[in-house]
């Protein structure tokens, strides 16, 4: 029971340049929702100022969207979505350059 997490829009910089990681769902504890995953990911960031660039008020900070299996999490249950085996989750920060 594993999922894949990919980081886009510069978010890899907050996770020691890791582009993606594989996770056993068991690592998230009892509740295997996107909320648990966000919390789990936030814990990986040591510096508080860096953490704020990912995690704010219990969820991802403004400007980050979450995708599950090529769908916007808004089409699912957002933080309450229950992760399943082989899910592919992407955290992506919006870009403003041009």
């Amino acid at each position, binding site marked *: 029971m594993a999922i894949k997490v*990919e980081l*886009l*829009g*510069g978010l890899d*910089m*907050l996770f020691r340049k890791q*582009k993606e990681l594989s996770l056993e769902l068991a690592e998230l504890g009892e509740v295997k929702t996107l909320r648990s995953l966000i919390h789990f990911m936030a814990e990986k960031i040591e510096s508080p*100022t*860096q953490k*704020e*660039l990912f995690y*704010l008020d219990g969820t991802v*900070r*403004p*400007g*980050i*969207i979450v*995708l599950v299996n*090529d*769908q*916007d999490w*808004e*089409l699912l249950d957002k933080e309450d979505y229950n992760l399943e085996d082989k899910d592919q989750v*992407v955290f*992506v*920060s*919006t*870009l*403003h*350059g*041009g």
Partner: protein
Amino acid sequence: SDNEQEQLSHEEYARYGRQMILPEIGLPGQLALKNSSVLIIGVGGLGCPAAQYIAAAGIGTIGLLDGDVVDKNNLHRQVIHSTSKEGMPKALSAKQFLQDLNPHAKINTYVEYASPQNLFEIVAAYDIILDCTDNQFTRYLISDVCVWNEKPLISASALQFEGQLCVYNYCNGPCYRCMFPNPAPVVTSCAKSGILGPVVGTMGTMQALETIKLALSMKGINKEPFIPFILLFHAFRFPQWKHIRIRSRQQSCESCGPHKVLTRSFIESSPSEYVTRCDATPKAAKSL
């Protein structure tokens, strides 16, 4: 509308023949393009290829809005300007280039930056708006003005090796604030973080493609249903592209929802309060 043109000249038939032969376009499609008007906001890394392919394809009326001037140090990605035009306003440099590429296009230039003062009037005159700018404040402003004017918005952005593209405010699709209700605390720019030319070039060219698809759709030529999406690109990932289905228009949206507050009168009468809806005060280092 009353100004729709029903004819192509012999020259236009020949020039657009290779795309009119496509059954999805034909003469009705080419006339739809000719009778469409597109405003390109920002004639930089995104706006250069977008304008180039939009003009080449026969979009009848093109607006170019940019207050900046040509700078050699941006020519690695702003590829319709040139070294000999250093210092010329980008909108005028682009018009000169585009008019020789396709003399049939009517090109309007606005040598100014997008602002709450000028944008409502300019946007009102066009069918489709392209966000080719490079900062968060202007991106929110353009979206809010497009919502107020009921204009579809084709928005792209790029940084380093990545690009994003989304069609906003079309059919039941979201506006920019539906996707991003609150401004992000961190802002970087191409000047600070760098950008590779063909990355932003690909995104701008794809904006031109979506513009043509949208013009055909708005005039009833292309009947495929519109499904809200965002395209994500990264030059060094496998796969390079993701094509994501996104939310539809959000009831909770402060710009386009039933209880919207970010109306034209709010934006014009409360400039300092409006700024806070478009740019978060950075709480943390701007070093992402």
